[in-house]
């Protein structure tokens, strides 16, 4: 009997308070890394009605204007009017300058990287599957695309629509393969209470949903439930309505709950934090396994212990879809990729990424998912390890 079930994933727009915090955290990290690539940074934010709290712990030579950057992010997200807006909100900053010694003692960049060890005990998961061309699960891919599209539309209709929004996509799976779209739920916030729902609905269908599905193979059908603002209109939304915190949307950042994920936040951390970079490396490995055709679903698990350069465990799980045994695959993955802390930073050139984008890349990463972003050309989305993985097969 064919098993059939619905799986839903949720994503939010850049104007959602939690995402706003993620973006501010990452904008700070990005700007510091741009000026000072070996910097150590932890940036956390919380936002409520009229106040943004930023806590920045950094060991760096860089100097940044935290409130200005934060205000820029808030304005970019579309909060340029109303009770919460980038120009007038209050920004409370707590800055802790750590001594330079907290960075690596070695002056030479290369040796500094190879000396890096994990500073957290953490188990990380990377996942890839064949449901979409970017090898992400379909629900989160769609949710993120819809959220991204919704964001764009909110900006185009900035007089009517406010930047806060939420998207949920439900996919019917038959035999673990997406078979049809069960439901789409979109929550968009509006500037004024008097915007007619019909008009909102039309805008969203015409300008968000339709374009988002333009290049998709699976599109909504007549049975698909499309809900727009099912709980009634959301006026203004954003931090004026609900509070936000950095790192509370790890689901939307990763796999939408379809695969396991570490509870650690991705945003607001510099590359030496293994709970961020390890998640990228795990995704990279999993994606390459699937891209190499070695499995159609693959989860890579990396476990790090404080004080070790390399993960104490590298484990691959293919849910029975692997061309080779999971043990075999685990060994190959471990051999093919350098999972040491410094190795990952070197492979992905994480500090250089910040510099090349003038500090902007991290901020962009913080909204609409850290994985499967073709427009950003992320190094951990590259399938550059396929050859190595297959070579290992051939030569054995």
């Amino acid at each position, binding site marked *: 009997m064919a098993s059939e079930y619905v799986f839903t994933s949720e994503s939010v727009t850049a104007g959602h308070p939690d995402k706003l915090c993620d973006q501010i955290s990452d904008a700070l990290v990005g700007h510091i890394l741009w000026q000072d690539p070996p910097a150590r940074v932890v940036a956390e934010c919380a936002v409520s009605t009229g106040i943004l709290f930023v806590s920045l712990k950094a060991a760096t030579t860089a100097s940044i*204007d935290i409130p200005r950057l934060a205000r820029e992010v808030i304005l970019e997200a579309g909060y340029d009017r109303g009770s919460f807006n980038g120009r*007038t909100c209050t*920004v409370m*900053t707590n*800055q802790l*300058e750590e001594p330079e010694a907290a960075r690596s003692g070695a002056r030479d960049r290369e040796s500094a990287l190879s000396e890096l060890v994990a500073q957290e005990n953490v188990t990380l998961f990377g996942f890839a599957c064949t449901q979409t061309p970017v090898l992400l699960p379909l629900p989160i891919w769609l949710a993120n695309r819809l959220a991204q599209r919704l964001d764009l539309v909110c900006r185009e209709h900035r007089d009517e629509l406010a930047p806060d929004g939420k998207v949920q996509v439900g996919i019917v799976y038959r035999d673990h393969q997406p078979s049809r779209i069960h439901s789409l739920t979109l929550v968009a916030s509006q500037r004024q209470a008097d915007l007619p729902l019909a008009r909102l609905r039309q805008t969203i269908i015409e300008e968000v949903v339709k374009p988002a599905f333009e290049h998709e193979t699976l599109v909504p059908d007549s049975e698909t439930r499309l809900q727009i603002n099912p709980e009634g209109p959301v006026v203004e939304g954003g931090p004026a309505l609900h509070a936000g915190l950095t790192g509370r949307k790890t689901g939307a950042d990763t796999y939408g709950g379809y695969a396991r994920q570490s509870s650690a936040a991705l945003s607001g951390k510099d590359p030496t934090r293994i709970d961020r970079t390890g998640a990228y490396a795990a995704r990279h490995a999993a994606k390459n396994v699937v891209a190499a055709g070695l499995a159609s679903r693959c989860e890579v698990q990396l476990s790090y212990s404080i004080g070790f350069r390399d993960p104490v465990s590298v484990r691959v799980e293919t849910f029975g879809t692997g061309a080779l045994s999971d043990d075999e695959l685990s060994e190959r993955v471990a051999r093919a990729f350098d999972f040491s802390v410094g190795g990952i930073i070197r492979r992905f050139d994480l500090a250089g990424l910040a510099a090349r984008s003038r500090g902007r890349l991290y901020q962009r990463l913080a909204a609409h998912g850290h994985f499967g972003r073709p427009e950003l050309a992320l190094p951990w989305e590259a399938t550059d390890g396929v050859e190595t993985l297959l070579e290992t097969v051939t030569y054995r």
Partner: protein
Amino acid sequence: MAELSALLEEVFAGGGTARTLLVALTSLPCRTIPGHVFRAALDQYGLRSTFDTILQDREVIEALDAVHLPASGETRAVTLRLIRPLTLHQRIGVGRMRLHVNRELLLLIDDRDEVTLRRGDIRMSWMRMNEEVLVRLRRARDRSGAPVDMLAVSAGHVISQTYPLDVITLPPRVPRERVTVEAPPPPPPRLAPPAPVMASAAAPAAVLPAPAVSAPPAAVISVVHRSPGRLRLRIAQLYRNEVEKARLERALRGRAGIVSVVASSLTGTLLLRFAAPLTHQEVERTVERILSGEDAGEGGRRQQAHHPWHIFDIEQTAALLGTSPDRGLSEAGALERLSQYGPNLLPQAVSRSPLQIMLEQFASLPVALLGVSAVVSIVTGGLVDGVVILGVVALNAGIGFTTEYWAEQTIAGLNRGLEPHAVVVRDDQEREVAGETLVPGDLIILRRGMAVPADARLILADHLSVDESALTGESVPVNKMVAPLDERNAPLGSRTNMVYRGTVVTGGSGRALVVATGVATEIGEIQRLLGETEQPETPLQRQLRTLSGQLVAGSLALCGVVFGIGLVRNQGFLQMFKTAIALAVAAVPEGLPTVATTTLAIGLRRLEQQGVLVRRLVAVETLGAVEFLCLDKTGTITRNEMTLVMVVTGERRYDHGAGGFSIEGQALPPGGSPDLEALLRLTALCSEVRLEPAADGPRLLGTPTETALVRAALEQGIDVEALRARYPLLRTRLRSEGRGFMDTLHQDGNGYLLAVKGSPDQVLSLCDRLSEAGTVRPLTEEDRERILVDNERMAGQALRVLGVAYLPDDGRPEERRDLIWVGLAGIADPPRPEIPALVEQLRAAGVRTIMITGDQSATATAIARQIGLGHKGHLESLDAAQLETLPADVLRSLAERVDIFSRVSPAHKLYIVQALQRAGHVVAMTGDGINDGPALRAADIGIAMGVSGSEVAQEVADMIVRDDNLATIVGAIEQGRTISSDIKKAVHFILASNTSEIAITLLATAVGTGEPLSPLQLLWINLVTDVFPELALGLEPPECDVLRQPPRDPHAAMFNRRDVRRIGMESAMLTGVALGAYGWGLARYGMGPRTSTLTFTTLTTSQLLYAISCRSEKRWLFDRKPSAANPYMTFAVGAGLGLQGAATLLPGLRQVLGTTPLGPSDWLLVLALATGPYLASELLKAIERPCRVDRRDADSHGQ
């Protein structure tokens, strides 16, 4: 406004209340009803009393400016907007209280049609309490079940009242004809009973309300007397009318020329003192105008319209002002407006009169009690006693008066600011006029270096930049333009198309239409805020008041007991009465004010020698309790002077400070770097700075940024004049919108030289080559990236960064893209060199330093890092353009943590000070600008700068730092702490010694063993042997660790439990030895003068020796670090012993005091007994020492 009338008829036809009226108002289609229309409509039906009941005072409805109603669909609410915030005085069951009414009252209407006043819109203050007044109009049912409307008013624990609202039913036939009148109806007479029905209705709201032209109602005024500069008027409507009194006083106070205003509602008279050129007639006329309501008092606030001018375009502005943007006003029109709106003057702060200062000296409970005792003594025949007591009072008042009067005089001597001149266009003619003659609508011309004479909307701006630091604290001049803005609530600093009075034009030129003059200007508004801010009571005042009260009550009770016991024991009425009075005088700490005043006055003088001028005596002591010092960045932490601080050429970074340029700490000799020199030469060429020869080197005239660059070039030995002669200037293109750089073209021999400086990324985008170490090479991508990172980093350090480039041999005017990059120059307003050490010292002394600035947070953070703010590496900053939107409790809890407040406007400084005070802290605040006035006054200690500070700041401050050197604040804090600890020592001594005197008399009277001390002996002890040690204790030099202790807790009582126990033990010792001597004397000599003398001498001697022990609370006899010498104490003890000796030896004194000479054995006994309390006290200190860990010490580490 026919709808309004119809609505009123509908609501009240069947009986309505204020609640139903408010609910009904929300159904009106209109959004705003002008106040006079509303009043007229209410009066038409005699309904004004409905509002009087809910708002408690008829002045509220009188002051109503407009009623705002939200658009349908929004929350139902009625906003009452008043012409100004009100302070009302009300008599309630428990005394008089003040109600502070906000300018906007928001009445929210809920689903049940009940009306609630927004919290905080009305606050009350009574005694030391300050509470929000909660007003709610509720629906209820009476006993019979019929619906009634109730008014519930509550405020903290002070008021809680509920009473029914009047139900008003209109008579069935109301005259329905409505008359439309052109002008608003004249305000009704003040004392009219709840308004009569008036047959007048609405007039359309004029945009710029014309001043009332109606004839004043017959106010009954008569002149009581006239003398030069004085006028006493009797005003009928003032009699028994507190509202009128407050209104008159407020309206007259602060008016140009008026020196003092005293209105009395008891007698119905008004006393005015004024200065020439005002005449009696003019003053009388002004009073009449105020009484008739024609003149709102505040110099035209009511008359001048308050529009968001910055969002209007020029045509709208000109139309609203009734003026022409080309021709200006006509001379005649201007003259007429001048008489309507009054002169463009700001009120001057009033200083206290000598009489006031004198009277304040007597306003303390102990002094009053002493006065009474003196009178009673004289009446009952004790002339000597009475005179002695009066002597004490006079001494006390004399010292207090002299010091305070002298301080007041010094302040008055500070030079005053001058009213600015203005260039104005009238009748199409340009002319220079005195600034005070400007009126709204005038077209003024602004040129570089001019002070802006009034608030004005720009209509032409040619590279106009204005230094608004006096108003906003932003030290970088603001570039002004003409285009209207979108944001209605833009902060002052962002209103780029407005110029404000009190600011200075630093560059360019412009034309503007005056929109507000005098008190209606933003600065006037700030001064008005000043008038509303109250000065808090200082910790010393509070503690001494409490203590005096307690002591007075306690000693009176004890005297009563002694008197009663004496009567019971039948010791003679008069005798006991005299003893009781003497005892009262002995017990009352009359020395307390004297000691406090003297100590404070000496401290004041010491501070003055250090360059700190103290305006209020008690402020000296408050300094010791200061926990937070709020420093203004611009002008206080920094010099408010832009300076070149960093240059980057190639990969080299040069720091620039007082000692010239340096690389990584190594000084760079002149000519040490060709790249640097090239950059400086280019910026000296590409610059509008003019050099004026002066005695001490050339004076630089230009924008702060350019001046900073040229000054650095001069310091580096570059002859700018010669350089400019060598490369004659051909043309200049200034930076403009969209083109963020400036370039100048120079003749270079036969060729040309193009010098460019401006926004680094724009200049860099024009370059394709790079000059490094004298050679020019192509600019690579890495170079660009490095330069941009350098730029970002410098910007992050709050520098204004300029990129510099050049191109030789270029004569073509068009934009080129092949310039040669030279480097980056970073300019900032650096902190004064003494500040970091100051912050460190303050931290050691447990004082948190907070920086408040109108600048961007990057600037603030960079400066904060340089001066070492923050704690344990943490630096917390609050960047808030709209601090007022933060809930008060949130701000209170945040304020304690924050090190930097950035982008803060004047009113916000006040919020910060108040938030810290609400959290229970003693706050000092420095400031130099006009904008700092309200916060300076509200702070426990307001500190103004003597050189750079504005007059307003100096007048409201508690202390003035003469030379702007903040380092003296540390000395002041040390002085303050010493003073409070000295006062505590003196009070400690007074308490212990006075208690012993009472105890001896009480015990002896109770036991019935006669009277050990005669009344005059008691007074002798009190005056001779107590006062000198007290004063000496008050002059103790600072103990060496005073600046390493946390500030004392201002809320703690002066003495804690342990102190009280110690005072008790010590006074028991004093009593013990005196009673010992008494007992010994009784046993040996029986009751008589010899026994009395023995007791008397033992007591005085033991007290004198005990005083030495009181010099320190911690250091004891065998301490390794002895106290610094106090010659006063040596003198006091020596003189005391000498006088006591004289009292037993000199026949005259012996007779008065009833003493006899003592024998050698008596003296031996006296000495043996007298050293007892001293040694015991020293021993107590030694025992208590190890456990003297201050609680607050632990607390301050936890912060």
